[in-house]
């Protein structure tokens, strides 16, 4: 059972078996176990190699465009009338979201391991685009699995991936969405064990993926922590991020884990509302095993995985990274929810007041700001991860608002 003891050092996880408390692990078929161990060893070596870190740092600076700014959202702050709201501007990265931080790290690792073929799964297409981008940059063939349903509703991103030279394979099995794309990518990996590197986009999957993706995304929190210290002379009272699989959130949270005075707040997608269809694994799910890790999952009364729903395709996943499950259970992080309608309203508000069109994913985090800034109070400071830009979402939003474009 899950240990509810609060650890002295939150950053000491996962353990050697890839567990965050009872969560995480390596629940994959035996054929993949040697590959998962090989990846773990290669990642440990790279993590400790100053040369690898310097190379990654160079690409993050010159290709991705890091560091991303920390920006005081003055008009939103005035609008809410509570704590100061800062945006961590991940939407300004190359390809328009935080996804590229992880892709850059993993592609360098894949090449270091001598892998010659890259596969990935994608839901909305953001991780697929980021993966196709780094594959183009380094000249590696790329296959992206994408549910047939998502292929239909995210056509521009499919074309974008094709422009970048990637092959997009529509997945028709199961419910033909992100979870099935991930199943299909795992099936490809288990079939092509010699040459293929599976570039997972979220802080989920078998160990070491949750740790590795978190580490590559932790640049978000490291920068934000230093920036807020410089701008405010102190740590924030709360940091906020949307959570689907949870890579942008864990990247922001991780460098603050041991700063116990900083509240960590994740916002899950409540879709049509928690009584209807939603994508809130922690608030509406139970622990189980899927895609190589034990974590909170949406499932029915028999343990079958159920379909997630969110207006934001990037949050439309029935699970969540295992570190979030653990942070929830031990009480270090708090997970709230926002509905489709609340996210839509926040999307428009942010565009009108700040001149920034946020991704629908990030809009879920913005939607909970009124409660958060009120709780923290007028003298407080809140950092919100603006994880992606919303250009990709304008068609969805227009349709939801009944506008023809």
């Amino acid at each position, binding site marked *: 059972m899950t240990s509810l003891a609060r650890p002295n050092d939150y950053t000491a996880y996962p353990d050697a078996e890839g567990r965050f408390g009872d969560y995480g692990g390596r629940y994959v*078929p*035996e054929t993949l*176990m040697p590959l998962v161990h090989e990846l773990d060893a290669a990642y440990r070596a790279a993590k400790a190699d100053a040369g690898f870190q310097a190379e990654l740092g160079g690409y993050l600076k010159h290709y991705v465009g890091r560091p991303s700014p920390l920006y005081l959202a003055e008009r939103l702050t005035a609008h809410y009338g509570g704590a100061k709201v800062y945006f961590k501007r991940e939407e300004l990265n190359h390809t328009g979201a935080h996804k590229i931080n992880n892709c850059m790290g993993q592609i360098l690792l894949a090449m270091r391991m001598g892998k010659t073929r890259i596969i990935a799964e994608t839901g909305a297409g953001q991780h697929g685009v980021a993966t196709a981008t780094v594959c183009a940059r380094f000249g590696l063939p790329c296959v992206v699995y994408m549910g047939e349903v998502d292929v239909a509703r995210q056509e521009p991103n499919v074309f974008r991936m094709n422009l970048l030279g990637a092959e997009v394979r529509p997945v028709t*099995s199961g419910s033909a969405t992100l979870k099935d794309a991930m*199943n299909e990518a795992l099936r490809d990996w288990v*079939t092509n*064990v010699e040459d293929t590197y599976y570039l997972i986009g979220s802080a989920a999957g078998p160990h070491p993926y949750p740790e590795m993706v978190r580490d590559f995304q932790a640049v978000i929190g490291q920068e934000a922590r230093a920036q807020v210290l410089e701008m405010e002379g102190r740590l924030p009272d709360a940091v906020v991020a949307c959570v689907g699989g949870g890579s942008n959130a864990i990247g922001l949270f991780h460098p603050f884990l041991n700063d116990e005075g900083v509240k960590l707040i994740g916002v899950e997608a409540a879709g049509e509302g928690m009584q209807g269809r939603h994508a809130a694994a922690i608030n509406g799910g139970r622990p189980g095993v899927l895609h*190589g890790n034990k974590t909170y999952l949406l499932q029915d009364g028999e*343990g079958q995985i*159920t379909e997630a729903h969110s207006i934001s395709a990037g949050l439309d996943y029935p699970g969540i990274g295992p570190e979030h499950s653990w942070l929830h259970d031990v009480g270090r992080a708090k997970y709230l929810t926002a509905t489709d309608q609340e996210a839509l309203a926040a999307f428009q508000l942010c565009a009108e007041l700040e001149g920034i069109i946020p991704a629908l994913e990030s809009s879920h985090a913005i939607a909970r700001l009124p409660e958060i800034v009120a709780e923290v109070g007028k003298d407080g400071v809140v950092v919100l991860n603006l994880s992606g830009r919303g250009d990709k979402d304008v068609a969805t939003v227009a349709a939801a608002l009944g506008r023809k474009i």
Partner: protein
Amino acid sequence: MSKARIDARFAALKAEGRAGFVAYVMAGDPDAATALAILKGLPGAGADLIELGFPFSDPMAEGPPIQRAAQRALAAGMTLSGVLELARAFRAGDAATPLILMGYMNLILHRGIETFAHDAAQVGVDGVIVVDCPPEEAAPLAKALDAADVALIRLASPTSDDERLKVVVKGTSGFVYYISVAGVTGVKEADAAAVAPAVERVRRASGLPVAVGFGIKTPERAAAIARVADAVVVGSALVDEVAAALEMNEDVSARVLLKAESLAKAVRAARIGQTTV
């Protein structure tokens, strides 16, 4: 009784000097009653052991045939409790054929590991294969199954080197399931020439019989594997018969059992005229 039933069956096969035929079918495919008719008919069709799949929404190691079988079973309302009921009904009429449940970890966790082990033993299940539960994650399940005298069957694959094999076979019982190709079920074809030395390696490491599965679709291929392995597992080719029968509006169990019979015959005849391996 459980582990003993597996041991007794492999001892009998050894005495006969032939490989066993292991038939995999999906519980509840296309519905519970038909699946039970298939189960009851399998020993008569020549199945020496039976693997009964329990359907999961996200079967990551399966190719299209078994994925579709799981979807048919789920659409017809099959549950893990329903699977255990099928096992009980089968066992009521057959005391000798080992019955192995095969599926994914989430359903077992959902039921509770101890409850599952207890219930499986109660209904006469002899072994369990959990596709996404490698040795690193298996300790609680292994303990519970062991206490219930149900074998936790381990898997080895072409990616298992000698070091890995040691981990895989540690504390195992019953038999070892050798995945003959790196891949999902029912897609790539197994090559008997490559399988032979691998089976020998797994046998040496485990001291147990080795059943070979994945990518064995035809009687010819089954016979070729039967010459080098202790048992031959066929799954996708059988569940494809369910799909074909439904499409052609034929008697599902008759069609599946006919296929099983042809595979069993090939396996039984494979070593005739050969020196025993």
